């Protein structure tokens, strides 16, 4: 292989990324060719100079700065979800919540049914014992209306009467009907 082709392979040869055949060729040629050996040395030295590139030290607080940024970016509910995902209460909280919800629903259902049954019972009992009282109360509440209706009817009758005597007797009749006198 001629010098031009060997020099093309030198950069990869120095990285030890040539196959065995090409590696042997470059090694053999550069051991005999002064110009190619010089070229190889220049490649190696310029590559070694890269060691002189100074490094920088990270900010000593880079870790705390990172976690601060994490907490600032995360919404509060995600923090809670993360705690659940990381297993903080995963084995206990979720089942506990499920049982609690079930118990609450069951309790509420039972309570409602009890309330309903109790009220029905009270209504039934009320009907048996206090039906008459309720009826009387309804009469009393509507007495004004009843009286008005009766009075109006009577007044109509009175209007139709000609004599005072007839009026008096009719008034008596009215009283009797209204007050059961």
């Amino acid at each position, binding site marked *: 292989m001629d010098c031009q082709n060997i020099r093309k392979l030198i950069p990869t040869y120095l990285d030890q990324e040539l196959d065995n055949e090409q590696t042997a060729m470059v090694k053999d040629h550069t051991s005999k060719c002064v110009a190619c050996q010089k070229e190889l040395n*220049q490649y190696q*030295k310029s590559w070694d100079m890269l060691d002189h590139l*100074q*490094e*920088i030290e*990270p900010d000593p607080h880079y870790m705390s700065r990172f976690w601060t940024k994490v907490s600032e970016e995360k919404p509060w509910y995600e923090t809670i979800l993360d705690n659940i995902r990381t297993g903080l209460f995963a084995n206990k909280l979720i089942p506990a919540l499920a049982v609690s919800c079930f118990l609450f629903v069951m309790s509420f259902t039972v309570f409602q049914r009890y309330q309903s049954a109790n009220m029905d019972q009270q209504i039934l009992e009320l009907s048996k014992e206090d039906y008459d009282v309720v009826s009387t109360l309804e009469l009393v509440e509507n007495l004004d209306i009843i009286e008005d209706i009766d009075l109006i009817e009577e007044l109509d009758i009175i209007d139709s009467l000609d004599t005072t005597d007839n009026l008096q007797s009719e008034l008596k009749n009215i009283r009797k009907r209204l007050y059961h006198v």
Partner: protein
Amino acid sequence: MDNLSSAKSYEDDPDVKLMLEFQAGDKASFEKLMVKYYPRILNFIYRFIPSREVSEDIAQEAFMRVYKSVQSYRPQSKFNTWLFTIAKNLSLNELRKNKKKGASLDAPIKSSEGSFIRQVEDKNALNPSDDLIQSEVSQVVKAAIEELPENQRMAVLLRRYENLSYDEIAKTMNTTAKAVKSLLSRAKENLKVRLASFKKSGDLQENPNQKG
């Protein structure tokens, strides 16, 4: 190779194991990864984008991406390959964003000798100390790397400072091993030209830019 078999083959990677432990809820494992890789990622980015402040921000963002992707993480490569891919993408995005803002004020100056030499900051120095010489060499090397096209620069940084194989570099850069071979060959040729010229001029006091 399907996802399951590739995942199994990378689970021998100790860093992948730490990531899987973090996925299971162990935050301490994530901190171990961060302690191990943060300085390396920071310097990788800094060699690409020579601004400490920007490099710190990008390094933080790279680890934030790792942190946020924990639930969907499936090992498709070595952990460091994946991490450097994230850092590479963020760095390239930042670089392209800055390119739109105009040329860098730190661009090296071409001397009358035809080589690229960075101006010395302290023009009044008559007897530079070893530290200053070392710093100057570092600056020259830094300038030579910055002169490289993006892809060549990326390949050099991953090979020279992270010791990734051609295959790992190819995976990180989303290309082929053959393309990486070509990139590194051209990059080394460019570095040889730039750094060989600096070596020839040698003494800083002979730098024509320092006179007057």
